[in-house]
C-alpha cells in the first residue's frame, strides 16, 4: 500500500527538480546547522552527567538565566505592543516619510549588533545624551535590567513588525466595515475582530523576538556591564568560559540556551499550525 502510494505520488509530481533542490538544501543544512551542533554534542560528551549538572546549576549561571529570561520577556512584551503599533501605522495610514520608516524597521537586522550595543551604551550611560536626562529622575539604564531589555528590544523589533505587517495588509477593509455596520465601537472591533485576526502573527513574532533576545550577545554586553548575579546574561557566560578555554563548560551552557530556543520555536510552530488549521476549516 505504502509503496503504491509513493510511486503514485512520484508519477503525479509535476514540479521538476525536487530531488536536486532537496539534496542541495539538506547538504546546506548539514554543513551550516548540523555540523556545528554535532561538535557541540561532541564537546558535551567529554562530560559526565553529574559534571554537566554541576556546570549548568552553578549559582552564578542560574542568576544569569533569570536575568536573560526576564530581560527577554520584557523586551518581547514591549515589542509586541510597539511592533503592533508600528505595523499598524505602516499599513493603515499614509504619511510623508512612510517608506523611510518602513525601511528603518529593518535597521536592527542590518546593523552589526556590537555597533548597536556601543551606541545604546553611549546614549544611555550616565553621561550620555539620554542617560544624562534620566539620571536626575533616578532612572539609570546602563548596567541595569532596563538596559538589557532595551538592547534586546532594539535587536528583535523587526520580528514583530515583519510578521504582523503582511497579515494586517491582507486584512480586508470590509471586515472592519462589517464590524462597524453592526454597531461595534472602535475598541470592540479592535478587540473582537482585528486582534484575533492578527493574533497568530503577533504571537509568532513575539515568540521569535523572545528567542532572538535569549541568545543576544553583542548588543547587550556593552549596556549590561556584566556584573555577576545582577546584569550578567547567559550568552556572556558562554563567552567568559570560552575565554578561559573551558570549552566543555561553554558547550554545556550553550546546550541549555539551544534547548530552550528550540523548544520554544517548536511550540510556536505547533500552536500556529493548530490555529491556522482552525481558520481553514478544521475544528479547533
Amino acid at each position, binding site marked *: 500500500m505504502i509503496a503504491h502510494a509513493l510511486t503514485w505520488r512520484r508519477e503525479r509530481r509535476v514540479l521538476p527538480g525536487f530531488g536536486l533542490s532537496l539534496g542541495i538544501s539538506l547538504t546546506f543544512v548539514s554543513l551550516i546547522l548540523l555540523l556545528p551542533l554535532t561538535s557541540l554534542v561532541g564537546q558535551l560528551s567529554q562530560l559526565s552527567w553529574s559534571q554537566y549538572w554541576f556546570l549548568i546549576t552553578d549559582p552564578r549561571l542560574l542568576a544569569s538565566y533569570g536575568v536573560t529570561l526576564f530581560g527577554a520577556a520584557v523586551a518581547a512584551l514591549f515589542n509586541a505592543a510597539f511592533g503592533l503599533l508600528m505595523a499598524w501605522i505602516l499599513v493603515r495610514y499614509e504619511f510623508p516619510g512612510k517608506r523611510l520608516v518602513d525601511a528603518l524597521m529593518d535597521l536592527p537586522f542590518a546593523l552589526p549588533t556590537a555597533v548597536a550595543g556601543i551606541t545604546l551604551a553611549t546614549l544611555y550611560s550616565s553621561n550620555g545624551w539620554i542617560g544624562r536626562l534620566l539620571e536626575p529622575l533616578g532612572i539609570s539604564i546602563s548596567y541595569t535590567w532596563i538596559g538589557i531589555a532595551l538592547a534586546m528590544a532594539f535587536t528583535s523589533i523587526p520580528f514583530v513588525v515583519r510578521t504582523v505587517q503582511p497579515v494586517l495588509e491582507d486584512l*480586508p477593509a*470590509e*471586515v472592519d*466595515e*462589517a*464590524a*462597524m*455596520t*453592526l*454597531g*461595534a*465601537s472602535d475598541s*470592540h*472591533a479592535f478587540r*473582537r*475582530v482585528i486582534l*484575533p*485576526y492578527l*493574533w497568530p502573527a503577533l504571537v509568532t513574532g513575539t515568540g521569535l523576538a523572545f528567542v532572538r533576545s535569549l541568545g543576544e550577545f553583542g548588543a547587550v554586553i556593552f549596556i549590561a556591564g556584566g556584573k555577576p548575579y545582577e546584569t550578567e546574561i547567559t550568552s556572556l557566560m558562554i563567552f567568559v568560559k570560552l575565554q578561559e578555554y573551558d570549552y566543555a563548560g561553554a558547550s554545556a551552557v550553550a546546550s541549555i540556551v539551544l534547548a530552550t530556543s528550540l523548544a520554544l520555536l517548536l511550540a510556536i510552530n505547533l500552536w500556529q499550525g493548530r490555529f491556522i488549521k*482552525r*481558520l*481553514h*476549516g478544521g*475544528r*479547533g
Partner: protein
Amino acid sequence: MSIRISQIEKTYGYQGRGRTRALEPIDLDIHDGELIGLLGPSGSGKTTLLRIVAGLEQADSGSIHFGDRDVTRVHVRDRRIGFVFQHYALFRHMSVFDNVAFGLTAMPRSQRPSSGEIRSRVMQLLEMVRLQDFAERFPAQLSGGQQQRVSLARALALKPDVLLLDEPFGALDAKVRQELRRWLRHLHEELHFTSLFVTHDQEEALELSDRVVVMSNGRIEQIATPDTLYRQPANRFVFEFLGDVNRIEGDIEKEVLTCGNARVAVPGIENGRQELLLRPHEVCLDEQPSTRAHLPVSVTAVVPVGAEVRLELEADWLGEPWLATISHADFERLAITRGKRLFAQPSRLHRFDTSRPQTLAPLSAS
C-alpha cells in the same frame, strides 16, 4: 423605513490631480418596504451611492434621510443599517453563531440582551437562513452560498431600518445565485424590510427589484419598474444595457433605409443617415425577401438554448454580427444549419436620436 436621497454628490481625488466625478447630484426616493436594485456597469457610481447611504463613505454634498431622521452626518455604526458585502466579510475566527451574534454582543452593556435572549434570537435567524445545524461551524467550512446566508442573517440580527447589499450574489455560481435570489425575494415578502442592492446583472435586477435604478457615469438614467424599463427604455444607454442589441446603419430615402445591397422599409421616418436598433427576438427569418425588407444574411453560429434557438448572423452590409432568437418550430421549418443563407425581417426598429425614443414597425403595411 423610507429612504430619501437628495442632491448627493461625490468627487474622488484632489483638485487638478486626476479628479473624477463619481456621482453627479443624485435624487432618489425609496418607499417603505421597497426592494430597489441599483443597476449599472462598473464605474457607474452605484456602489459609491450604496456606500454613501450606508455611511461607509461621505458625500461631498447633499442629504440622506431614513424616514424623518436626517442621517447625513450620522456615523455608520449609529445608522441602524444592515450591510451585506460581495465577499461576505465574515469574521473567519468566529463560529457561525458568533458571527450572527456579533451585533448583539457589541451593544453597550446597558442595552445588550441577556445571553439567553441572544441565543434564541440567533438560532431564530439561523433557522430563517436554514443554517441552524451549522451554528458551531467556522466560515471556512461553508460553501459560498451558505456564507452569504450567514452574512445576511448577521446583517438582519439588529433588525436594521434599511438593508443594503453590495453585489450580494456576484461571487457565487449561476445556480446558487438563482436560488438565493428567489430566497431573498421570499424573505423580503415576509419581512418587508426596505432594501437597496447593487448589481451589474440585468437579469438579477429585473427579477428581484420592485423598481430598478439604472446608472451610468455617476448619473441616474432611468428609475422604473422592471416591466416599464424593458418595454420603454428612457434612452439608448438603458436600451443597450438591458439586453443584446443589433444595429443597422444606412441612408434613408423615401422611408427606405439602404445599406449596401440591403434595404428595409421604415414607415414614418425622415430622409438622412440613421442608425436603428433592434432586439434579437425582433428579428424574424425567412427564405425569401419580402417587398418591405431585403436583408440577406448567412447563419454563422447556432446555439439551441432552452425555449429558443440563438443564431449569429453575418452579412457584408453589417458592421458587427446580429443575434437572433427564434422558436424551435421556426428553426425546424427553415432547416437552419451553419452557413445557410436567409433573409431577415425586422418586426420592430428603435431609434434614440430624437428627444423621445421611437419604435417603428417596418412590417406592418402603411
